[in-house]
């Protein structure tokens, strides 16, 4: 048990070092900036034009649907992951349920294709 905890302790130390380094670098950048500002310098970059409107406009809904699809499929991948340990001890009848689950995933994917949700043209 203590060996496992030691591993996580090392990882935590590494994480703290990485976070401290990242924070330090950005903080140095902020501290070193002169603070000499004028409107053109602070405006959003739009290829030399004066920025018009707000940048937080609506974007294509397909980005959103893709993200939702990702959530569904990633949960299913997460459910499949125990298979790597399970497969060795699984009985043939257990295997049928695994097969059924993957078939279900396949049907879902086929349905998404059928509905043209995945088509970006």
């Amino acid at each position, binding site marked *: 048990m203590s060996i496992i905890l030691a*591993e996580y302790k090392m990882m935590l130390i590494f994480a703290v070092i*990485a976070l401290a380094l990242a924070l330090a670098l950005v903080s140095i950048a902020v501290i070193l900036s*002169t603070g000499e500002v004028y409107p053109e310098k602070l405006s*959003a970059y*739009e290829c030399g034009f004066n920025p018009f409107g707000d940048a937080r406009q609506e974007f294509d809904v397909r980005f959103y649907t893709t993200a939702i699809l990702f959530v569904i499929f990633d949960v299913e991948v997460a459910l499949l*992951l125990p298979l790597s340990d399970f*497969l060795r001890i*699984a009985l043939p009848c257990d*295997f049928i349920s695994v097969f059924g689950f993957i078939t279900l995933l396949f049907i879902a994917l086929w349905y998404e294709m059928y509905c043209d949700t*995945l088509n970006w043209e």
Partner: protein
Amino acid sequence: MKSVILQIFFVLCLLIATAYLTLAERKILGAVQLRRGPQVVGIFGLLQPLADGLKLLFKEFIFPRNANKFLFFISPVISFFLSLLTWVVLPVAPSIAIGDIKYSTLFLLAVSSLNVYGIVLAGWSSNSKYALLGAVRAAAQMVSYEVSLGLILLFIFIAASSMNLCEIINAQKSVWFIIPFFPLAIMFFIAILAETNRTPFDLPEAEAELVAGYNVEYSALAFALFFLAEYSSMISMSILFSCLFLGGTLPLFGSLPSAMWLAGKTICILFLFILTRATLPRYRYDQLMQIGWQIFLPIVLFALPIFCAFIKLSL
């Protein structure tokens, strides 16, 4: 205390490796295009990354007028932190990693998918149209290939019956996984190209339309952090590839130290990354999404039950 110093040394080494990867990229791109690449600063341009870093240090960091200051400040930190965190489970020598935990590959997958946060927050908080578009594209792209990536990893987990990277390497003693899983290895390579936003899938920073994508408003060291994060995740993904498919630290012949073998294999993959950038034109966005969702995912999903049945019957 000793371990802390060693880890700081490790971080420094990997930062230097990352910096020199940018030089290697410029040199190789130069060689492909029949020019010399950087060669003025130092011998053969060897001091170029240091000069670049120093230049960025003396640039000014500005908060754009309409930016969300806190998120704008924190998103390069998140990006850099997460890309360094992937290194924690990578084996550097046989059965030696900083955190040699049981589910190390899973940890790596989780951390690399968290990388989306840094990019989305950077794009959204800088309140610029280019940045927002780049961030949204990057998020959708990384997320799409995440699914196939996870499923391909599942094949390896089943074959090695472990999720620990060191054990996966040891499972390849008789044969490297690239031989039985050759098509999967190619798909994995393409997926990591898309995950790290490299050409031919660098739509998030398609410079002809979006200038620089999500990091367009960033300057100075904050920009450098995004840059370093991108290249360091390139290296860590290459190490992951060589551990999963090329036997990682396993030597092919001779008595070279095994860490050298891992480094050599990783450098080959990185060379392939850069060569891909030099040769292939950029994909269209609909093609990119089509490959991820309509080609990779059905293939992997179809192959998985067949593979499971094969393993089960051969046991």
